C-alpha cells in the first residue's frame, strides 16, 4: 500500500514538473503582488516539528521558520503580523511554491542539486546548517558510530537521511538493519521502546527527540556526524528581485548579530550609533532598502520583529527553548561557525 502511494506521488510530482514548464513567467513580480495583497503567503512545516513551526495555546504560530516569515513580512510590508501561514508537508511544498500558492517557503528544506536544478526553485541563503548524527541510549554503552555494526537504526522512510545512512555504512563496510517509520513521533516511540538501537536524524530533530523523551541524561548523541545539511528559505527561481529580498533579509539578521544589534537596542543604535555599517544597515545613511524596492527601514523592521539571527536561534532552538540545541556550526564565522553575511557596502 505504501509503495503504491509513493508511486502515485512520483506520478503526481512528474505531472507538476511538466506543468511547471508550461506556467513559466506567470509569477513575475512576487513583491508587487505581496504589497497589493498586503499579506505574505509563507509556507512552513505542518506544525509538527518542535522549535520549527508550532501552534501555542492561543492558536498563534511560533518557531524558527515562523520567525523567518515574520522577518520577511516586516521587511517587505513593515508589519510582521501580515502573514498567512500555509502549513505544508514536504511532498507538496515545492509544487505549492511553483504554482504561486505561497511566496516563500520557510521550511526545513535541505538544499540539494536535484531540487535546485530540476524543480526550478532557488535557495537565497542558508539559515541552518544541520548535520545528521545518531542518538543512542547511554545504557547501550556505544561510544562511536563505528561500533554500530549489525545495529538496528530508526530512520524516516524515504528521506535524505535514509540515503545518507546507507552511504555511510557502505563506506565503512558495516551492516545495519533500517527500521523505517513515517513520522518523527513514530521514530521516537520506536527508539524509546527499543525497537531500534539508535535513531538517525539531523541534530535539531535529535535534540527535539531528547526533549520529548524526557530524562536528557539517559541519551547520548554519538560524535560522528555523517552529513551536512544546508537548510534555507526557498523562492521561485524566475523572480530574482524577490530572491534578493529574502536573501538580504537573512543577511541583515546575521549581520545584525555580528554588529551586536538586538531587538532591544535597535532603535537606540539607529539614533546614536556612529558605526557606518550599522548606519547603512539601519537606513540612517545610504539607500539599500530603496535599491531592493523596499523602504530604507527594511532591516530595522525585520530586526525589531524577530531580533538578530542569534536571538532567533536561541529563542526557538537554542538554550532559551526546551530543545537546547547547541549552536555549533550555526555560530558566526568569528565564533567557529559558518554563519556570515556578505559585506554591507
Amino acid at each position, binding site marked *: 500500500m505504501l509503495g503504491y502511494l509513493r508511486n502515485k506521488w512520483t506520478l503526481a510530482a512528474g505531472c507538476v514538473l511538466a506543468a511547471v514548464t508550461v506556467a513559466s513567467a506567470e509569477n513575475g513580480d512576487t513583491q508587487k503582488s505581496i504589497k497589493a495583497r498586503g499579506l505574505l503567503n509563507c509556507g512552513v512545516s505542518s506544525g509538527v516539528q518542535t522549535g520549527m513551526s508550532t501552534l501555542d*495555546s492561543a492558536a498563534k504560530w511560533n518557531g524558527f521558520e515562523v520567525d523567518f516569515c515574520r522577518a520577511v513580512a516586516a521587511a517587505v510590508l513593515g508589519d510582521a503580523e501580515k502573514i498567512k501561514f500555509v502549513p505544508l508537508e514536504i511532498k*507538496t511544498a515545492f509544487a505549492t511554491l511553483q504554482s504561486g500558492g505561497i511566496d516563500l517557503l520557510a521550511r526545513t528544506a535541505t538544499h540539494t542539486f536535484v531540487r535546485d536544478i530540476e524543480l526550478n526553485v532557488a535557495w537565497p541563503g542558508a539559515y541552518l546548517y544541520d548535520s545528521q548524527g545518531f542518538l543512542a541510549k547511554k545504557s547501550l554503552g556505544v561510544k562511536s558510530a563505528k561500533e554500530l555494526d549489525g545495529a538496528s537504526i530508526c530512520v524516516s522512510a524515504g528521506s535524505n537521511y535514509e540515503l545518507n545512512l546507507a552511504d555511510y555504512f557502505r563506506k565503512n563496510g558495516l551492516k545495519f538493519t533500517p527500521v523505517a517509520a513515517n513520522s518523527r513521533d513514530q521514530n521516537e516511540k520506536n527508539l524509546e521502546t527499543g525497537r531500534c538501537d539508535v535513531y538517525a536524524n539531523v541534530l535539531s530533530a535529535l535534540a527535539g527527540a531528547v*526533549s520529548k523523551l524526557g530524562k536528557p541524561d539517559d541519551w547520548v548523541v554519538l560524535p560522528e556526524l555523517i552529513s551536512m545539511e544546508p537548510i534555507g528559505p526557498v523562492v521561485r527561481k524566475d523572480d530574482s528581485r524577490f530572491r534578493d529580498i529574502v536573501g538580504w533579509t537573512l543577511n541583515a539578521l546575521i549581520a545584525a548579530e555580528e554588529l551586536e544589534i538586538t531587538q532591544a537596542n535597535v532603535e537606540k543604535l539607529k539614533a546614536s550609533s556612529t558605526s557606518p555599517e550599522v548606519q547603512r544597515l539601519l537606513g540612517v545613511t545610504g539607500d539599500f532598502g530603496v535599491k531592493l524596492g523596499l523602504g530604507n527601514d527594511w532591516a530595522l523592521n525585520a530586526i525589531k520583529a524577530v531580533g538578530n539571527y542569534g536571538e532567533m536561534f536561541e529563542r526557538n532552538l537554542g538554550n532559551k527553548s526546551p530543545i537546547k540545541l547547541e549552536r555549533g556550526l550555526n555560530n558566526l564565522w568569528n565564533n567557529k561557525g559558518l554563519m556570515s553575511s556578505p559585506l554591507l557596502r
Partner: protein
Amino acid sequence: MTEAALISDTPRRATAMASAPARIALWLRRRIFASWRDALLSLVVVLILGAIAWTILPWALFKATWSAASRADCAPGGACWGFVAAKASQFIYGFYPPLERWRPDTVFALLIAGLTWLMVPRIPGKGYAGLFMMVVLPVVTFVLLHGGVAGLPVVPSDKWGGLLLTLILAVSGISFSLPFGALFALGRRSRMPLVRWLCIGFIEFCRGVPFITVLFMAIVMLPFFLPSGMKPDPLALAVAGIIFYEAAYMAEVVRGGLQALPKGQYEAAMAIGFGYWRTMLYIILPQAIRKVVPGIVNTTISLLKNTTLVMVVGLFDLLNIVSAGVADPLWVGSQAEGYFVVGLVFWLMSFGLSCYSRAIEGGFARADRA
C-alpha cells in the same frame, strides 16, 4: 428473526416473573456459563477486558493530572488532561478569532437542531428537515462563518479549523454525496449512451484514484490551469472533492440496491402512467436505498475518516490541529492525550452514525412486518 424471537420467548416470560437477583443469576447461567466451553470463552473475554482496563484506567484517571499550565506540571506516568483543557478552544474552533466564536457556536446549535429534527422519528415534517439540512444550513453556515454582511467582520476560511472544520467537511459531504451518488447511479443505468459513459467514466476515475491524490491534484495542479492570480479556496476545493469523490462510492452502493429490485416494479410504475423521474423518485429509489442502508452508512463512516486527509491542502481539521498542538514546546510529550481525544471524538461520531443506521433498519423491519 422470527424463529429466534420464538425461542427466546419462553425464558423472557419466565424471567419477567422472577426477582431481580434471580433474574441476573438466570441470565448469567443461560448466556455466560451455559456450558464449560461458554464459561471458558467468557473468562478469556473478561480477562482481556480486565487487562485493557488495568493498563488504561490508572493512566487515564487515577494518576492523571487534570489542570496544568505546561507539561512540566503534570505527574509522570499519568495522563496530562491539562493539555487538552489548555488547547480545547483551539481543537474546537481552530484559528477562529475568540471574539467571533458565537458564530460557530450558532452553527453548532443549528446543526444539532437540524439533526434532531431529521433523526427523531416523532418530530413531523421530515421533508422540510431535509430541505433545511441541504439548503438552509449550508447557506446560513457559510454566511455566518465567513461574514462580510450585516456588519459581521470577514473571517476567511483558512481561519476555520478543528472540530468545526471536520464537521463542515463531514456534514456537507454526507448531505450531498447521497443525492449526487443516486444521480450517478441512475446515470450509469441510463439508456442514453453519452450520459452512461460520462457517469461510468467519473465513477471509475474516482474509485481508481486515492483521495489524497485527488486533493493533491486539485490544490497543486489546478492553479496552473487557471488564469494567473485566481487562487481557488482550499476549503471549497476540499468540500467539492469530498462530495464528488464519495458520490462515486455512493453511486455504486445505490446501484446495488437498484439491481436488487425486481423488474415488476418498473413495469407497475409504467402501467400507472408514471414518467421516468416520478418512477425513480416515488417507486424505485425509496425501495433501492432502503435495501442498502448498511452500505450507505459504511461509506458515510469512511467519508468521515477521509476528512482528515485535508492536511494535504493545508487545512487544520481536528486531527491535524491536535498533531500541531502536541509539538508545542510547552507541551512536548502529550501525544497520547491528544490522539486519545481525537480517537474518542471520531469513535463517538462513527458510533452515532451506526446507531442511527440500526434504528432506521429496525424501523424498516417493523414497517415490513406490519
